[in-house]
């Protein structure tokens, strides 16, 4: 009986020590590379959103970076992600509408890319049509006014290259490339694009002072009786400077672009677009979903005097019948000064974010 008990005990120990990894056979794990979350974000925000099936790895990030800057994904090999998402423009471009490989021009302004892991709603693009960073990365390759490729063709190009099969092997444990792995790698790289070192971040950390003009601009931004920008664009305790929610901000009386409503079909969402982050405005002109404003002055003037009524206009747009909140010229200038403190020069020059090819 003792022998039987001993056998049972040993068997139990063996079973207990079995791990899930054994079931996966040859599961490959690349070198983990957890996101370097800035202290400010650690202190103020929820953890970044990272899918369980796409952890950050050294090899995945490096592959994603190479893919991001490589025109191999486009139909004619002329355009990469970075063509419209340039580091020096905080990963947007300076055009009103980006131009596709065949000269096609869209109707939306290219969005900048940073702090995407903190988009807790996980809605991407101006109309939120893509879910998750990986979901976003699927779109441009086959978009007829962007890279105009097919995924089978893009994958075939990568598979035929002398470099990529080995890089996918190192990143994902397989040299058989597919679109899912491509967007996973790009998403890993994009999640590393963290911007948290603007002058205002430094002010929040107690490292620098703001000028009187910038401080007044901060107050204009937060004052419900003046700018009241914070209800959609965050505050020092919510340092993303975006709500990632959809609003009609009083641009048009009628809509040539239904925005969010185009995706949901809900008339209550016609003309709504996602609030972009106000970080890095110094590098992301022109502004609005259709890039209609070339300067920050034009943006501020819009909210001050340029609002127009439409049925879905957000209730937070004040004094619409008067065109807006009627800021003084001094408040406008100070608001602009404050907004520029949200720009992060170290982000656009970060060597880890530049073209490795």
């Amino acid at each position: 009986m003792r022998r039987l008990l001993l056998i049972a005990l040993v068997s139990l120990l063996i079973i207990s020590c079995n791990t899930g990894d054994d079931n996966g056979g040859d599961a490959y794990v690349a070198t983990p590379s957890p996101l370097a979350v800035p202290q400010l974000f650690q202190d103020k925000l929820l953890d970044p959103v990272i899918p369980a099936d796409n952890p950050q790895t050294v090899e995945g990030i490096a592959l994603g970076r190479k893919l991001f800057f490589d025109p191999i994904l486009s139909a004619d090999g002329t355009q990469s992600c970075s063509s419209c998402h340039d580091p020096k423009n905080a990963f947007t471009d300076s055009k009103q509408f980006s131009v596709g490989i065949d000269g096609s021009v869209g109707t939306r302004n290219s969005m900048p890319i940073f702090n995407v892991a903190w988009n807790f709603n996980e809605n991407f693009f101006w109309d939120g049509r893509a879910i998750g960073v990986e979901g976003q990365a699927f779109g441009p390759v086959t978009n007829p006014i962007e890279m105009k490729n097919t995924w089978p063709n893009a994958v075939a190009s990568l598979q035929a290259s002398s470099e990529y099969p080995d890089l996918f092997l190192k990143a994902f444990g397989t040299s058989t490339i597919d679109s899912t792995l491509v967007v996973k790698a790009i998403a890993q790289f994009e999640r590393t694009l963290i911007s948290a070192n603007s002058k205002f971040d430094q002010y929040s950390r107690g490292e620098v002072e703001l000028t009187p003009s910038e401080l007044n601009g901060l107050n204009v931004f937060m004052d419900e009786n003046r700018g009241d920008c914070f209800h959609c664009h965050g505050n020092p305790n919510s340092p993303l400077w975006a709500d990632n929610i959809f609003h009609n901000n009083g641009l048009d009386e009628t809509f040539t672009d239904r925005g969010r409503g185009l995706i949901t079909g809900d008339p209550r969402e016609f003309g709504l677009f996602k609030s972009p982050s106000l970080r890095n405005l110094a590098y992301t002109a022109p502004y609005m979903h259709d890039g209609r404003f070339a300067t920050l002055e034009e943006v501020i003037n819009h909210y001050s005097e340029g609002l127009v009524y439409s049925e879905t206009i957000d209730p937070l747009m004040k004094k619409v019948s008067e065109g807006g909140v009627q800021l003084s010229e001094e408040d406008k200038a100070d608001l602009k000064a404050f907004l520029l403190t949200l720009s992060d020069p170290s982000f656009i020059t970060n060597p880890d974010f530049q073209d490795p090819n």
Partner: protein
Amino acid sequence: MRKFALLALVALIALSCNNDDDNSTTPVNVDFLFTHNFDGSPIENSDFDQIQYTNENGEQLSLSKLVYLISDITFTNSSGDVFDAGDYNLINVREETNLTFTPNIQIPPGNYTVSFTFGFDDEDNIDGAYADLNSADGGWNVPAMLGGGYHYMRMEGKFIDNTSTETGYAYHTIRAADMSTTPVTNQDTSFVVTLGTVTVSNDTQVEVKMDVAEWYKNPNLWDLNVLHTVLMPNFNAQIMMFENGSSVFSLGAVTQN
């Protein structure tokens, strides 16, 4: 040894067969369901952005957003024992998120007076202290220049004003702060809602009803033409909202499943 093994087996079977139902004193969780109506008419997602309500003052209005914070759901038994998980719940009516909430505390079955705090009381209303609220809705915070802490409620929509113009309103409740005084005058305008006595058993759900119309009714008849925007820095408006809030919530159905 055989005897020992047999005893162990019997004990194991006995434990396996234990049923929670057999023990009426085993502590249990209590679920809450938050429902919303306008003078009794239920509010659902499809009701938003429709000018279909009329407040006590006669203004026709819509809701476009209704998000609010409750905290410190508290159970007090007849002996005066108090059970409070000290947690909170941010309810988004339009998006239908967090309409159900289970406080992170287990209490013995029995009869309890149930209450909660609308918003955060001053003890909890700590500027920037809650990462989930900082991350919600573009920041659920109140800027420092408006007194800091967190919103209690954001209720927004449109109404037909006295010039027949569709106008936005933003009925936002926060801790009242008069920033014009030195030092700043703060007044805690959160309030405790006492729902009444609830019998808690193994699987109890408590419905908490919000009647939105009550925000406009009493004791202060609310005129949106006068008070529709820039209410956060309006100390007196915050006091009026606080006063009107006392009749907004009530106990709905209590179900034992």
